[in-house]
């Protein structure tokens, strides 16, 4: 299940909702991305996530489907926020449920790696006196590529 939304999400509510969609869960992996307090060594004031409405949903569904195809999963949840977020706020949530731990952990890792390079989001960070579009990291592409094998 995927959601693209401006409002915050609740991990507990999402786990409860996911558990209703399947049974015999043995392993539950989650990942939460959070706005850091700092940009390099400077205090971060806010991070604004721009996205491409329509394409975002399309890509998140693609990533979700790919995970469900590659691993034996019972259920998945991907929630990605957009808009202006403050330090400490939640950006993204991934939950994967499976019978055994390996599938849940690996697929959760995969989803977040693919989101990094295939989710049509762009981040604008504001410090007290400046603003910056966050560059994609070449390391993120390397992380994505390791899932090609």
């Amino acid at each position, binding site marked *: 299940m995927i959601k693209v939304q401006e409002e915050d999400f609740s991990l507990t509510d999402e786990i409860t909702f996911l558990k209703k969609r399947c049974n015999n869960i043995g392993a539950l992996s989650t990942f939460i*991305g959070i706005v850091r307090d700092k940009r390099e060594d400077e205090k971060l004031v806010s991070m604004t996530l*721009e996205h*491409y409405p*329509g*394409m975002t949903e*399309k890509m998140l569904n693609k990533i979700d489907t790919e995970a469900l195809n590659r691993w034996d999963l019972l259920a998945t949840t991907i929630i*990605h926020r957009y808009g202006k977020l403050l330090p400490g706020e939640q*950006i*993204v949530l991934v939950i994967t449920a499976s019978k055994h731990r390996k599938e849940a952990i690996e697929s959760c890792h995969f989803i*977040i*790696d693919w*989101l*990094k*390079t*295939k*989710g*049509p*989001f*762009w*981040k*604008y960070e504001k410090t007290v006196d400046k603003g910056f*579009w*966050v*560059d*994609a990291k070449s390391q*993120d*592409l390397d992380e994505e590529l390791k899932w090609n094998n």
Partner: protein
Amino acid sequence: MKVLYFSWIKDKLGKSHEEIQVSDNIKTINDLITLLKQNNENYKDVFKDTSSIKVSINMETASFEDSVNDNDEVAFFPPMTGG
């Protein structure tokens, strides 16, 4: 053709989207870029180094050699940074 811009490309051009009239001799994304750059310094600046620019056609990742036609939605943006 609907063309969208994101992130610093949108900032540099001062617009997030526009409708472009394309004639039949615009066959690929590269042709479209050439058209946009004609007589416009902002576009010339944005597209001077396309190695850091990505493109999508109808919300699917595409390459500069891919074909486009008047009904397509094209978007230009820097590499994505989701998650």
